[in-house]
């Protein structure tokens, strides 16, 4: 039981650190693409410390604070559901469907916080965030169904063991892997599908009234989301991690691909995002499903 | 300048020449100045717009002749056919500072008239939007009048940072204040 307690504390901590590294990688990739030098190595850490070091910050009421707590807390809880090398947390007690729902709790938390800010930009941002969720979750769910059907289980730990034995999911269901990656692009909310943090149109959407520790928490949440997206994709398709090195390499690679794509695209409108995410990944997913189920 | 427009030009010159109240001076081939007294101006503009294809009112200028105690209003109208500009000058007395609006002839006049009203205090009857638009924060006299001394106002309302030369001493201590020595600045002018 004690080992479990340690795991439950350690996994979010690891997630935070790796998440910050992924944030740095994201900004470095952006800089390199724009032929810039890019931020120093510890920049994300500086940002977080600066935000939490702010001496005056404003809040719009209790629900604003509770919303942020739910957002960050939701992700912290979600980390313990995904098995990482050496630590499984409660991954063997729950399964991937619970994990999908755990990923929805933070967006509800942020929605509450943004709603309470009584700022039209925030409300428009949240309505677009939920539209985006509707867009990327359908292909993502098809992928989850396909992989659960192929592995015969929805328990992530068993999925990793299956892949260790039978080879990576990527090779057994390439179409589903493509659909998963496309959905990941929408899930991370970066450039082509960055409809809810559109700085030019709606002043960073939900984050319009977030300053100081609120924005700091949201940056922590963004690092968690990058980390979760990376390792979930790795667990599903790239055979999870036996040792931390290859696990992290795979995770960083997985996150790097959408980032490079992201910084070469302008921002799509909401209906274009729905159109593209409901057309190509869903088609690929269904095709992949057909292959998986009838082979 | 095709044939039709040249005839129009000639016709207009003869007409204006006959009217003795209108003093015509042709500055350049496509610039003409007309001087007319205040109450005849609207009819002149109507003539120019209706008959002489001067359909575009480019601007209304106001000049404050404080010595003669008059405002001079200049209506610049432009004709696309004859490709030429006519500036109709007129004088109105400075004191009541009221004049007739030409909004019914030229819609842009509303904006110019409001501008002049804000800056010079000339009230144009009949102009639609005669309230403050640019100088909402200003409740002093119309600032562009010559009797308004901007500098005096500034010295009265604003104060200055006193100029302390010791700023320069710090900069020179750091090597002239310019981080990059001049000879390295322009790559093109490098000798090597």
């Amino acid at each position, binding site marked *: 039981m004690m080992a479990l307690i340690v795991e*439950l504390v350690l996994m979010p901590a690891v997630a935070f650190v790796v998440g910050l590294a992924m944030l740095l990688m994201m900004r470095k990739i952006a800089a390199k693409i724009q032929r810039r030098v890019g931020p120093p190595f510890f920049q994300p850490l500086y940002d977080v410390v600066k935000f939490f070091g702010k001496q005056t910050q404003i809040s719009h009421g209790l629900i604003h604070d509770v919303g942020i707590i739910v957002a960050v807390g939701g992700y912290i809880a979600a980390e313990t559901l995904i098995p990482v090398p050496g630590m499984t947390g409660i991954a063997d*007690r729950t399964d991937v469907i619970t994990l999908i729902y755990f990923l929805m709790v933070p967006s509800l938390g942020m929605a509450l916080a943004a709603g309470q800010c009584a700022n039209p930009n925030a409300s428009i941002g949240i309505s677009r965030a939920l*539209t985006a969720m509707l867009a990327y979750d359908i292909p993502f769910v098809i992928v989850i169904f396909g992989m659960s059907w192929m592995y015969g289980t929805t328990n992530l730990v068993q999925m990793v063991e299956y892949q260790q034995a039978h080879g990576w999911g990527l090779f057994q269901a390439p179409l589903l892997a493509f659909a998963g990656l496309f959905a990941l692009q929408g899930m991370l909310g970066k450039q082509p599908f960055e409809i809810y943090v559109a700085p030019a149109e709606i*002043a960073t959407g939900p984050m319009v009234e977030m300053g100081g520790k609120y924005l700091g928490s949201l940056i922590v949440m963004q690092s968690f989301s990058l980390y979760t997206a990376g390792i979930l994709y790795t667990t599903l398709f790239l055979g999870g991690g036996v040792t931390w090195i290859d696990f992290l390499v795979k995770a960083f690679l997985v996150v790097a691909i959408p980032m490079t794509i992201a910084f070469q695209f302008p921002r799509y409108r909401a209906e274009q995002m729905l159109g593209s995410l409901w057309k190509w990944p869903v088609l690929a997913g269904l095709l992949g499903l057909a292959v998986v189920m009838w082979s | 300048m095709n044939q039709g427009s040249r005839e129009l030009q000639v016709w207009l010159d003869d007409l204006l020449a006959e009217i003795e109240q209108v003093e015509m001076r042709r500055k350049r081939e496509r610039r003409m100045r007309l001087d007319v007294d205040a109450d005849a101006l609207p009819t002149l503009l109507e003539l120019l717009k209706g008959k002489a294809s001067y359909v575009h009112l480019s601007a209304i200028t106001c000049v404050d002749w404080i010595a003669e105690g008059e405002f001079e209003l200049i209506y610049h109208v432009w004709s696309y056919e004859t490709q030429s500009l006519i500036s109709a000058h007129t004088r109105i007395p400075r004191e009541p500072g009221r004049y007739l609006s030409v909004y019914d002839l030229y819609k842009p006049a509303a904006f110019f008239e409001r501008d002049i009203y804000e800056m010079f205090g000339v009230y144009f009857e009949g102009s639609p939007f005669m309230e403050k638009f640019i100088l909402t924060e200003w409740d002093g006299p119309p600032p562009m009048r010559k009797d308004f001394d901007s500098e005096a106002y500034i010295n009265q309302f604003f104060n200055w940072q006193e100029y302390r030369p010791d700023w320069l001493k710090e900069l020179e201590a750091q090597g002239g204040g310019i981080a990059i020595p001049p000879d390295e600045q322009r790559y093109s002018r490098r000798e090597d």
Partner: protein
Amino acid sequence: MTLLDGLWLASALTALAAGLFGRSPSAGPWLTALYGVQFLLVAFMGPLAYGADPVPASPAFSVLGYGLSWQFTALSWFFAVITAGAALAAAWFMSGAWGRHYAEQGGDLRLLQLALALNPSTMYVLLASRDFLSLFVGWELVSWASFVLMLAAGGVGVRWALRYLVYAIGGAMAVMAAMVLSHALTGSFEFGALAAVVPDLSAGTLWSLVILLSGGFGVKMGLLPFHLWQAGAYAETPGPGSAFLGAISSRMGLYAMLLTLFGVLGLGTLKALSIPWTPLEAHELLAWIAAFTIVLPTFTALKQNDARWLLAWHGIGQGGYMLMGVAMGDALASAGGLMHVFNHATYQAALFMAVTAVVYRTGTADLNKLGGLVTRMPLTFLVLLVGIIGLAGLPPMNGFVSKWLIYRALIDDGQPLLFVAAVVGTLGTIVSVYKLLHNIFLGQLRVEHESVREVPGSMLAPMLALSLIVFVTGLAPGLVLDWLTTVQRELGLAVLAPTLGGVERPDGGLDMLWVVGILFAGFGVGALIFLAGGRARTVHQLDNYAGGHFLTAEVRYHYSDNFYAGLMHRIGPWYRGSFQWLQDSVVAATDLLAQAAAGVYRVVQPAAWLLGVTVLALWWVAA
């Protein structure tokens, strides 16, 4: 004098008391006490849920040579608990300030109390049915009782009640046809007799039985082709009435379907019965109807601008989950479907009551005229929040458990398209319930709502009790799942082995105790991170970033109209209201026929008409 008689007597007594003393608001608490007695009587029949033998009712008639008798089984007990609970909550809500307010507004409190009392009593009769005859008697009584409850609204409500009546009587006639067909086949109305004859019935007869039964009961459940009446009828019924109707009334259709289709014909027959030229079987047909019933009403709810209508449309959508779970038939899915009945009853009633509380204070349920009420009605906000988390099926609440069971079963059975339809329904629900929460409670508080206060205790208590139930059954779903195992055994479905936290499975189970625990642990750590950042100063809603503009109270900048503009650009054109067109064309056809029939009676020359008819009759006879 068995417990069931006691229950019937108590409910009849409540109806009588409501009829006599319903008008005076002070009678409310007494009536609530009577409902409490009913709930206790149902609770005393608890052993039924753990395998005790059925509790018979003493009155048994024989009419025209056919026996008529009633008994309570585990299935009926499960539905009876929900009915009694919903009735108690609704009566409790109505007994206090809301009742006085309704009477002052000119509403007829006596009619509402009587109608509310009639509903559970007729439902206990339906739930106790033992053969086709008693089932039909109970079914008609329930249909008419809910008609009376819908009439209580007056004005617009009556129009919707009449539309409901036409649908309900149509459904009842389908059930009567099925009943009489089974009588023609077996000579009696006993379930057993039909069950015995079923193996050697031809496919055609079986199909007609299945279509008639599922169609007839489907009308009440609001399955897709017959769902147009439910949204209006449930939304226009006054507050507690809509809470009761939304919670349990349309689930009686599911009970009857379970009793007849699954109890008598049996899941095996349904699985064997295949639709010609298609790979689908009967139970898959039901599952597909359920899938469409999940998706279409949910996205119609998304466009509603009235809170009550949005919730009513969601009621129809969630009905689809129940049928899909039961139609799939294996242990997990049927347990999920049945538990969803319980879950939906709890949070739907709480949501309707919360919306009624908002209407009680602000006078309107229009989502474009509200906003920012969280600071004025925090407890109602809490109830609505818990309710919508349950309705959307997110982890801490019980809605998640039943949806998880259904999803897990769909993955086991390998039904990808049904799985996607269910998930699309869930996502649609999440998207539309946030619009409900945001437009009412978050955002800019209007000037005229600044004096709004929280609703009085008599309305808050039932709402908070229901929310507590939603959370507790979410935390420990095993409590409800145990009841369902006996029900599954009784219906002959595969039986589930639940633990207190959910389902123990090697390949991906669910343990809600751990899930909720981890979630709240996460919130704790999140709070620690958050508090590390020092104190924040709460500012007024006008101290907001608006691009350098100075905000004033008169300017209304709360974004609520056309809330999902981006989404609507994409799926807007897909709303064509084809079912509405279908229903209108049927009504127009009947009207045309009626005009023709009326024309017959305007003919002036009777004699010539008579001659023509006799010639026709003779020709017909000679042929």
